[in-house]
């Protein structure tokens, strides 16, 4: 009896999960968005006329895991902005739960740490939900195809959070380099460990 109950509970939760998260899969066209940047201006992907794609990073001011990756996110922008794959960072944490991720704190972070890329506030958390972002940092690489942005890679930045120099799988850089070569990434999806995004209750 208990086995049955458990079984139904599992099925029910699976159904609930799939109906709640109508998130993008690899190969899906993503919908453009408009979010407020730390300079108070609204930013959409369509404003980047020369972009061949984007490295979209859901991140956080406060998450120790995201902090570990901060310099690598800056490096990705440095390496790929000139190749028309700029970084777009997005903060989606609920400010009620994580006051350290407020818009003002995002502005401060961006200024103090000299971010060279937009840092957008996803206040309604709608964009994180659309993408299916779960943790920070969680990366989504999109590429332009027939004037649409198509999801090509999702997951972690690399395989060594502790030490960038010891990472022997640089998932995001490899994915973008493949796309620049006109190929799809060899690894299109990895699991991204990190702090769970703090959802509004």
């Amino acid at each position, binding site marked *: 009896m208990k086995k049955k109950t458990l079984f139904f509970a599992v099925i029910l939760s699976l159904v609930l999960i799939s109906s709640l998260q109508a998130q993008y899969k690899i190969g899906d066209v993503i919908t453009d968005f408009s979010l407020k940047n730390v300079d108070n201006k609204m930013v959409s992907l369509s404003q980047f006329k020369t972009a061949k794609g984007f490295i979209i990073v859901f991140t956080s001011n406060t998450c120790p*895991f995201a902090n570990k990756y901060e310099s690598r996110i800056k490096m990705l922008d440095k390496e790929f902005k000139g190749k028309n794959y700029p970084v777009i960072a997005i903060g989606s944490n609920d400010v009620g739960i994580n006051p350290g991720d407020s818009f003002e704190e995002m502005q401060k972070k961006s200024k103090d740490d000299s971010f060279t890329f937009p840092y957008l506030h996803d206040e309604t958390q709608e964009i994180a939900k659309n993408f299916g972002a779960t943790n920070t940092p969680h990366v989504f690489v999109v590429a332009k195809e027939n004037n649409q942005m198509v999801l090509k890679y999702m997951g972690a930045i690399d*395989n060594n959070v502790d030490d960038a120099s010891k990472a022997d799988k640089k998932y995001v850089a490899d994915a973008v380099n493949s796309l620049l070569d006109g190929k799809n990434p060899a690894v299109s999806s990895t699991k991204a460990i990190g*702090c769970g995004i703090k959802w509004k209750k």
Partner: protein
Amino acid sequence: MKNLLVFITLSFMTFNLSSAQEVRKISKSDLSEILNNPTHKLHVINFWASWCGPCVSELPEFQQVVNNSDSSKVDFLFISLDFPSEADKKLLPFLKKSGYNFNVALITDIDYNSWIEMVDPNWQGNIPSTLFYNNPEKLHYFISEPINKERLTSTIDSLLTK
């Protein structure tokens, strides 16, 4: 002078006592061995990290459940995903301060994608997550979100009576 010596000796002893919480360092193959444990027992593994707020929040209730459980039937292990380079600076002081007496292991293989699916194929790597298993019974149940004392207790009870 003699008193000072006694004091120093005592402080060392206290220090040693309070740092009794030992953290076993485990690799991916150790984890595989742990997951394939053939003993007929309910094993509960909680994946957590001292940098993870929701993980740290649920530990006091886990400790209560550990205290109230029959260790001949249920085995608990708390696998930390703390950054190995910061274990001495963050994890050990955290454990020392909190006084938990459950078993803690630190996974040193941080190529997470190489072992996440070993734990559960559907796990996205979010923590806290808790795995319940009993291999001879082919029991495998995974909860990939924070759990409170009531849910932890009822899950263990229902898995034990299977």
